[in-house]
């Protein structure tokens, strides 16, 4: 019988090794799988490459993972925002590497990684510093830059509901990078607010089909990053 549920977040992330590449969903706090990230901090793997749109805020969630020195390199589009000081501090000191990628190129690199497409051409960033050193080619009179598909060892994603097959639905703009990150990792770990019976999710409404999901952890009342930041909380 297929049952992708894991009893606890700790068990779900226990096999993440040093040096792994990890995609972490979320746009700011919306869709950030904060309980899975905290479990990863507890598990302690180091030298990680993290693919995520931002770099977290305060000293919880993704920012806490970075603050613990577990991340060697960030691949992201927008590494600074309100209340984000951990990454900027480390980056200014030269203690963490940054690969800056335009947001749409980041999404497409992940989508292609998940779809078995090793590279693609895009007009985004042509003529800018972010295209320097990359192959380019002309199609129908316009210049395009080649970008590589991205894959990861693990994806950590937050969704709203799942069934034991791993079918997922998301909530509002918390969907963001979740569906594409689920497709692009060897092992996809998802935290959901609620488990439903098989068949309870209308097949017409499934956003991520279960084939893309390996492990599910139920977190009925996930913590909210902005509330923790406001309270000045630090993880662990």
């Amino acid at each position: 019988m297929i049952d992708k549920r894991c009893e606890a977040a700790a068990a779900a992330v226990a096999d993440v090794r040093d040096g792994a590449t990890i995609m972490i969903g979320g746009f700011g706090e919306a869709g950030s799988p904060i309980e899975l990230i905290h479990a990863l901090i507890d598990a302690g793997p180091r030298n990680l490459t993290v693919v995520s749109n931002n770099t977290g805020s305060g000293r919880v969630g993704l920012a806490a993972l970075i603050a613990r020195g577990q991340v060697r390199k960030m691949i992201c589009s927008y590494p600074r925002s309100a209340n984000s000081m951990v990454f900027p501090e480390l980056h200014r000191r030269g203690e963490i590497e940054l690969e800056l990628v335009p947001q749409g190129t980041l999404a497409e690199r992940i989508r292609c990684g998940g779809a078995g497409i090793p590279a693609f051409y895009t007009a985004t960033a042509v003529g800018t510093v972010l295209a320097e050193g990359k192959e380019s080619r002309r199609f129908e009179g316009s210049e395009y830059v080649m970008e590589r598909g991205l894959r990861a060892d693990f994806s950590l994603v937050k969704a709203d509901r799942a069934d034991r097959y791993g079918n997922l639905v998301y909530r509002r703009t918390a969907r963001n990078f979740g569906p594409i990150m689920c497709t692009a990792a060897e092992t996809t770990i998802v935290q959901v607010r609620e488990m439903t019976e098989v068949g309870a999710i209308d097949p017409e409404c499934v956003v991520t089909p279960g084939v893309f999901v390996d492990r599910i952890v139920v977190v009925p009342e996930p913590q909210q990053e902005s509330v923790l930041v406001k309270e000045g909380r630090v993880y662990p």
Partner: protein
Amino acid sequence: MKGWSREEMAQRVAADIPDGAYVNLGIGIPELVAQFVPRDREFIFQTENGLLGMGPSPPAGAEDPELINAGKKAVTAIPGAAYFHHADSFTMIRGGHIDVCVLGAMQISARGDLANWSTGEADAIPAVGGAMDLVAGVKRILVMTEHTTKTGEPKIVAECTYPLTGRGVVDRVYTNLAVLDVTEEGVAVRELAPGVSFEEVRAKTGAPLLPMAQESAR
């Protein structure tokens, strides 16, 4: 008062957007445009974090941290809205399905190059977000900005000195002093704000301007 206020600039931008347009508004001043949709028109606002049909800010206390815009501010979804993931969102943007994008600017060159994401300073943490995707993919790029910097330097220049967001991407610029088009021949003033002279605009612009008379004669 001389010139346009930010609200008047937003109103002026909104007046140029056709009925039925799919519109992406940049973070900051461009967000004001949503408040000035002409009564006889319907615009659908896209926000690149995954919502088509973005509505106004919710009342205090009704914010949902999972319903936000690209500036990570709480918004609402209109009836008929759609949520989608990032690859779909940027398919809309990069695939030419969004009609208009309104962006802020640090510099605009005479050829329509735009710089709006980085000062290029050594200790700055660069952050690009979706800006390069928007200028590369959206059909019409409108820039909304003060005509000069806080220290009075021109923002419309012969060549951008800040790192570029895109080359030759800007179609029209709305400032507190004028509406200007980027044309094959150069920068053309289309409209002056109340009480503002062509000479004043020319003095505060770092690139040659086409003579206004010649433009209106076209």
